[in-house]
Each structure stands twice: as C-alpha cells, then as structure tokens.
C-alpha cells in the first residue's frame, strides 16, 4: 500500500467528479464544453492508472478529441448564428433540491451495490489460455478481433449507421461540393501539411503495434481521421476526387470486408467469423487494415458533414 499513490488516485477521482458536476452546472455553453474536455483528459489519466492504455488512447483520441472538436464547433453555432438566446427562466428551488436529492440517492444506492460486489474471477485466465491460438500476442487485440470479433464487427457497423443517421438528420445524403470559405490561416495549413507524413507513419505504427502491444485499428483509425480533420481546418476542402460512389465504398469498406471474411468462413464449413488457426494472424491484420481505413474516414466524415452543414445548411423543409 502506497499512500502517495492512493492520495493521487483519490485526488484524481475527486477532480473527475468535480469536472463532471461543473460541466453540467456551469452557466452558458463555453465553460461546460471546456470542462467536459478537461473531464475526458482526466478520465484518460484514470484509465492509464488502471493499466488500460488501450482504453486511455481510445478515450483521449475519440471520446475527448473528436467529440471535443465537434462540441467546440457546435459552440460557435449555438452562440453565434441566432442573435440572442432567449432568457432562460431560472430553475425553481424545489426542482434543484429534487435534482440534488435524486443524484445523492442514486449515487448512494449504486455505490452500496459496488461496495457489496463479491470478487469474481473474470475472464483474464480464459483469455490468457487461448491467446496462443488467436494469431496475435496482445490480449486486448485478441479479444477485439478474434474471441469477440462479432461485437467489433457490429461496432464498426454502428459507425456506419450513425453516418446514415447524420445524413437523415442533416437532410442531405452525401457531401457538399468543395467548400469555398476562406482559409483560417496559412500557418495551420502549412504545419498540418508538413506533419502529414509523420501522422501517417504514426497511424501505421499504431496499427502494426496492435499485434503485440497497446494499439490497433481504432487508435490508428482515429489518428488518420484526426489528420483529415486538421487538413479540413487548415483550409483543404472535401477533395474533388472523392466521388460519391467512392465515399460510400470507403464508409462501408471495413464493415463489408469483415462480413465477407465471416461469410467465407461459413462457406468453408466453419462458424461465422471463425478464422482458420494458421491464417488467423494475417486475416486479423487484413481486417484491421480495412477497419482502420473505414474508421478514420467515417470519423473524418462526421466532422466534415457537420462542418459543411454549418456553412451550407440543407434546404429548409420546416413545414410540418
């Protein structure tokens, strides 16, 4: 037992809780968004403290990084485009007491349940035992892409479904032609462009690293997506050579590729998504490559679609 470590973890936990509460109670929108991003970074530290570097990477990059960018971009929209927000009526005292009371009650009940939890074994031993047959050496990658690849496949599907949801909500399937707004500054554009080879290198490195250590398709995909977003911010619009059919293909490539791998297992007489042991390693790498491409591109599209929608809103169809 190390008092310094416990003290640090205790302080970090308190900080996380404080940031969460303030993110929801701070006035306006700017403070909550900034506090939420700080919350995400503090959470990433907590993941690292619990020896979950894969999760820390994913959370910092996707959960906080990408969502943070989207939130900040929304901040500009919500505070600027309409002249003044209507004055909000103050919440009544009774409502506040109710909210605080419910929170305390829920937290107490759930906290008690967590404290009363017995120590179950978990699946660490089972995963360690089968790791040798999985085709990779990193247990988290083995679970993600072999033992529970069905979950991962569907999760890549959720990204695609969410993109379809964005199309529906935005009122336009596809992307606006090359945006025409002015470049925000050549320093950003220049920096991003000169860093691009390094970013690509890091992405590929992370993908390759997933076989033996923390890393893999998600982290690599996010790095690629982030590179695209930075390029977009640096003034580089949606490229002309990305024709609609190519966009659709890139969006569904990872999901479709994994489906094909799964179905070919069926035709070979094995279970859905079952890899032959000798081919597991290369197949997982191929699946990860396809997934990285689609994940990165979809995340880029999330941002680009929202960003374009702000500048060129879909044709209003507000009649009800």
């Amino acid at each position, binding site marked *: 037992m190390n008092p310094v470590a416990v003290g640090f973890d205790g302080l970090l936990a308190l900080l996380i809780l404080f940031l969460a509460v303030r993110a929801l109670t701070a006035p306006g929108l700017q403070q909550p968004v900034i506090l939420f991003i700080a919350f995400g970074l503090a959470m990433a530290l907590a993941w690292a403290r619990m020896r979950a570097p894969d999760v820390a990477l994913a959370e910092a990059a996707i959960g906080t990084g990408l969502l943070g960018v989207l939130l900040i971009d929304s901040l500009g929209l919500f505070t600027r485009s309409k002249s003044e927000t209507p004055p909000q009526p103050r919440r009544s005292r009774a409502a506040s007491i109710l909210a605080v009371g419910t929170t305390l009650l829920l937290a107490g009940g759930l906290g008690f349940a967590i404290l009363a939890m017995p120590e179950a074994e978990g699946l660490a031993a089972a995963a360690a035992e089968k790791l040798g047959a999985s085709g990779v050496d990193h247990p988290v990658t083995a679970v993600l892409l072999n033992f529970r690849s069905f979950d991962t496949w569907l999760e890549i599907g959720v990204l695609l479904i969410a993109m379809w949801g964005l199309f529906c909500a935005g009122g336009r399937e596809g992307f606006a032609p090359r945006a025409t707004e002015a470049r925000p500054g050549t320093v*950003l554009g220049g920096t991003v462009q000169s860093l691009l080879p390094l970013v690509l290198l890091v992405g590929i490195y992370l993908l390759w690293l997933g076989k033996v250590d923390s890393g893999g398709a998600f982290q690599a995909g996010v790095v690629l997506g982030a590179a695209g977003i930075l390029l977009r911010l640096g003034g580089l619009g949606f490229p002309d050579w990305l024709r609609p059919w190519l966009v659709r293909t890139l969006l569904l490539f990872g999901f479709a590729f994994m489906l094909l791998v799964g179905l070919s297992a069926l035709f070979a007489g094995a279970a859905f998504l079952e890899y032959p042991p000798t081919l597991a390693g290369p197949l997982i790498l191929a699946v990860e490559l396809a997934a990285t491409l689609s994940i990165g591109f979809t995340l880029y599209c999330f941002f680009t679609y929202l960003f374009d929608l702000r500048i060129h809103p879909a044709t209003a169809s507000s009649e009800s």
Partner: protein
Amino acid sequence: MTISEGVTLILCLAGAVFFLAGTVGLLRFPDFFSRLHALTKADTLGLGLIVLGLMLQVGSIAAALKLLLIWVLALLASTTVCHLLGNYELSRSSGGEKRKAGS
C-alpha cells in the same frame, strides 16, 4: 540515489515550477495576450525540462528519442495554436486596425 536520479529530480521539479508559474499567469494576468504569453512560454519550457529529466531515466536510445519527439511535436502544436489564437483575438478585438496591438 544516483547522480542521474538527482538530476532528473531537479529537472522535473524545475519543469513543474514552470507549469505552476504558467498556470498562475493564465489565471492572474489581466489581458488576453499576456495570458497567452505566460501559458505558452511556461508550458514549452516546463515540458522541455520534464522530458529532459525523463530522458535520463529510460533505458534505450529509441525511447529517449520518442520522448524528444513528443517535445518537438508539442512545441510545433503550441506554436501553431498560439498563432491561431493570437490571430483570432486580433481580428475579433480590433476589427480593421490590426497593426495596433500586433507588436
């Protein structure tokens, strides 16, 4: 404690002091540009000192180079962001007369 551990300790502590100073500056300085100044200068130097301190502790050259790369990238990013923030503040606060506060 070996000499290298001692040096690391001193460098990291110095780095932390710079971080602290930068944060105090961010909170206490009166206007946008002096806050930006405090933040970026202190963070750059603070991070640099901590990276230097940690480089003495890692076993391999590769790991040390990775740490160095982190610092260089952070430098690049903070310079770019600082430039963007400054530009934005300039165009926001003074509209046409960008010259005035530019120095």
